């Protein structure tokens, strides 16, 4: 299967003639720089030799492994690297069962191919929802084991011995009784002729050599010396650089354009006018930006010219007054609520958020009548191919997509809107053009984390124990647009994750969801997706119940965890390591959160300090995590540290607002990021577990927001039910 695929790919390259024009040496220098025998051939679907060398002596037992007779062991990565360490942890899975050292392997981005490279948990070829390790855990170890068995069989046949007397190790097969050895490369041609084993037995955890060890990141060397190639760094010969301005109001159009001054800017080559955007094409971005500033555009703002965030919130609020699709229903919530001792009601709101990836949106396109070549950093390369093909008016196989390192994904690069826009521009440009969004365009034309509105009620019995929980919430369903089959009967698994599957034992529990798409603002996945809002709401609300019952926030949660020992263990560990219960100075407080999302259990304790002016400083965060079997413990630590900073940024600053249909935030002065001087100390404690691995790329983000809100409550007695933190609510009276 893989060979047909490779062959057709090569035909496409040859027909387009594009591959020859590209400086392979330049694109492959990342590999040389990475050293240690590892090559990240990140810029071409296949390294240069692929287009020329015969494939006859090659062993390609599945879509993930190729072993050449020259000894090269190439692992094809179906998941993309955006900082989460997947280019290290995924090879660990294959290498473990293939019995090769990580230093012996070379990596390649998988080309667009939904059949071969779809994530089994998503059903599409995409990197997101914290499921690379979860999706790859079994199939990629099986891919490695299958290849190893065939290599051993080839060696045994050559030596005419029993395969059971042979052993694979470090890229070689050894015949144990005689000590004879053959390298995998020497066996490649013969291994390819061996029967594919029907079923394979995977290693027992106690036999793991790589999995569970802190492997060094394979992408790190190129990222510290400036040689790593991100999408924005590609430079096909003759490439021009373009930037753009899109209608400030979503849905608006260009009414009039005066580009005289822009055309006069030195280095500006062309102005491209689209229906709802203008692009300035130039020799370099400096000229393109200067040209952009010189444009005189009159916009027709269209139907959303007056839209404000308050309008969106009001519609969502209305939606929570009706009924929604029932996402979870245990016991009889309404009946139980009628007879409780204490009733609690609350409304929570979570804002629109931008992704603000450090690498601004960009896409390079060489459009021709009969073919199109694209260079991009994408979390969903097959989606890019399909949508770009549509925009180009070409069949997908005529669109070649080169995927690159991603300078921050966080869900933004699961979307192909940028590629579509770049194709629209490139259709008017002769030769390749790199379209780069300014930071202002990146923030003002993001696709945003949805605004959410939650209406909750709960009842406590005489002991203060929760006996009923009701939640009806409204917001956009990203799944309904992005993966339509995932939206069924008014529900989708993302919008409700973290809202319907609490770790607590609650006898009467009802959650309803109302899908409501906001007008005039596009929504998308954002790091920790559904749980980014649901965990904030549920973990704040359980904290409210503990306070109403006048009980300790940890003890209160703990009493509800008899059926969830893994949750109880992380809660206990986080509380112990954080020194829960120990005194803190006045104005400081600790808050806890507990979640089971993305297949992992996390408890966090945040320590905050609230000034008299109401400003909040997060001092320290302690996190305990049970993510099942750990593949790379250093990555677990790094991802939780990362998720906490990302979530703390959102809790303290994150908010996209609309006024007159326009996003009000523009750059890092108005859309602020947590910085070094504000970063908390972070401790991560991993619970040892033999369960299958859970996801971790996003868990830290969803857990920290309520931990901060709860800590603010502990410090000030004020409950913040709307993010981000509003200092004016915390300011002490003079």
């Amino acid at each position, binding site marked *: 299967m893989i060979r047909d695929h490779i062959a057709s790919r090569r035909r496409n390259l040859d027909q387009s003639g594009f591959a020859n024009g590209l400086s392979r040496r330049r694109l492959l220098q990342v590999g040389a720089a990475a050293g240690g025998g590892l090559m990240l051939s990140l810029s071409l679907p296949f390294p240069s030799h692929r287009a020329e060398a015969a494939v006859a002596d090659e062993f390609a037992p599945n879509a993930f492994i190729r072993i050449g007779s020259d000894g090269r062991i190439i692992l094809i990565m179906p998941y993309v690297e955006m900082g989460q360490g997947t280019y290290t942890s995924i090879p660990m899975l294959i290498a473990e069962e293939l019995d090769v050292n990580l230093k012996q392997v070379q990596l390649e981005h998988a080309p667009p191919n939904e059949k071969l490279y779809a994530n089994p948990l998503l059903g599409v070829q995409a990197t997101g929802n914290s499921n690379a390790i979860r999706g790859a855990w079994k199939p990629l170890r099986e891919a490695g084991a299958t290849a190893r068995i065939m290599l051993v069989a080839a060696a045994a046949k050559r030596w005419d011995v029993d395969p059971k007397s042979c052993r694979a190790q470090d890229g070689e097969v050894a015949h144990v009784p005689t000590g004879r050895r053959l390298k995998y490369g020497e066996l490649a041609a013969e291994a390819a002729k061996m029967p594919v084993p029907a079923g394979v037995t995977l290693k027992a955890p106690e036999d793991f050599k790589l999995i569970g060890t802190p492997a060094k990141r394979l992408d790190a060397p190129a990222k510290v010396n400036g040689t790593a190639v991100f999408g924005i760094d590609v430079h096909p010969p003759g490439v021009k650089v373009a930037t753009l301005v899109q209608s400030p109001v979503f849905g608006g159009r260009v009414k009039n354009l005066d580009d005289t001054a822009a055309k006069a800017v030195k280095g500006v080559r062309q102005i491209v006018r689209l229906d709802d955007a203008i692009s300035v094409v130039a020799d370099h971005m400096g000229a393109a930006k200067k040209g952009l500033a010189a444009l005189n555009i009159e916009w027709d703002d269209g139907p959303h010219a007056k839209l404000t965030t308050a309008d969106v919130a009001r519609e969502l609020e209305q939606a929570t007054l009706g009924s929604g699709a029932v996402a979870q229903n245990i016991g009889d919530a309404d009946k139980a609520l009628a007879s409780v001792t204490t009733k609690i009601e609350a409304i929570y709101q979570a804002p629109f958020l931008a992704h603000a990836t450090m690498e601004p949106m960009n896409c390079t396109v060489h459009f021709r009548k009969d073919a199109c070549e694209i260079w991009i950093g994408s979390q969903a390369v097959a989606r890019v191919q399909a949508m770009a093909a549509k925009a180009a008016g070409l069949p997908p196989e005529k669109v070649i997509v080169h995927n690159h390192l991603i300078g921050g994904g966080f869900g933004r690069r699961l979307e192909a809107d940028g590629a579509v826009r770049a194709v629209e521009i490139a259709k008017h440009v002769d030769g390749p053009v790199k379209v*780069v969004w300014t930071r202002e365009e990146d923030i003002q034309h993001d696709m945003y984390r949805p605004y959410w509105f939650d209406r909750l009620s709960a009842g406590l019995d005489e002991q203060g124990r929760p006996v009923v929980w009701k939640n009806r919430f409204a917001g956009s369903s990203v799944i309904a647009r992005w993966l339509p089959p995932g939206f069924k009967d008014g529900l989708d698994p993302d919008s409700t994750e973290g809202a319907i599957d609490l770790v607590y034992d609650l006898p009467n529990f009802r959650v309803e969801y109302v899908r409501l798409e906001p007008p005039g603002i596009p929504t998308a996945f954002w790091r920790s997706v559904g749980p980014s809002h649901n965990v904030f709401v549920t973990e704040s609300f359980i904290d409210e119940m503990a306070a109403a019952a006048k009980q300790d926030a940890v003890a209160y949660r703990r009493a509800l965890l008899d059926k969830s020992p893994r949750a109880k263990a992380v809660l206990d560990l986080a509380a112990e390591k954080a020194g829960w219960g120990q005194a803190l100075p006045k104005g400081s407080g600790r808050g806890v959160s507990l979640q089971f999302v993305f297949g992992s259990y996390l408890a966090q304790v945040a320590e905050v300090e609230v000034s008299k002016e109401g400003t909040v400083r997060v001092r320290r965060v302690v996190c305990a995590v049970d993510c099942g079997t750990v593949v790379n413990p250093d990555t677990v630590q790094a991802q939780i540290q990362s998720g906490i900073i990302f979530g703390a940024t959102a809790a303290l600053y994150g908010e996209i607002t609309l006024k007159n249909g326009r996003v009000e935030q523009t750059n890092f002065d108005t859309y602020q990021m947590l*910085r070094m001087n504000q970063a908390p100390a972070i401790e991560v404690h991993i619970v040892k577990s033999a369960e299958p691995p859970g996801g971790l790329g996003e868990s830290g983000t969803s857990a920290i927001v309520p931990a901060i809100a709860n800590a603010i409550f502990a410090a000030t007695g004020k409950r913040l039910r709307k993010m981000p933190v509003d200092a004016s609510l915390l300011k002490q009276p003079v």
Partner: protein
Amino acid sequence: MAFTIKVNGQTHSVDVDSDTPLLWVLRDVLGMTGTKFGCGMALCGACTVHVDGVATRSCITPIDGIGNSAITTIEAIGATGAGARIQKAWLEREVVQCGYCQSGQIMSASALLASNPHPTDADIDDAMSGNICRCGTYVRIREAIKQAAQSAGQGG
């Protein structure tokens, strides 16, 4: 207009408008893409280079202000003592994630270490708070700077 600038010890002649930011000359004209674009307003530090050893945001530094100054970028920072120590510490502490901001982080950290071989936490805050990392590698950046400082003390 033609300008002659000295980058990493090499002299280059470029023909651009006098107000063109150094960032775009490096990236788009000279093809040195290690220096990154993040904000265009000196708010994020991704574009940091050294101008005569001083950490400078190249996105707001016009080409006509460079004169004879020596520009050092991420591509050559490893040739300096402080830069080499910082890069080594970055690898040992596994600082990078997506990596996009790290050129700028390393340039800021190298300038700090060159001028202040034993920075305190407050010094690190002062020197590094202009560099945003969206992946949140701050904890490790701080550790790596301290480790690099220590390695200098040991004669490294």
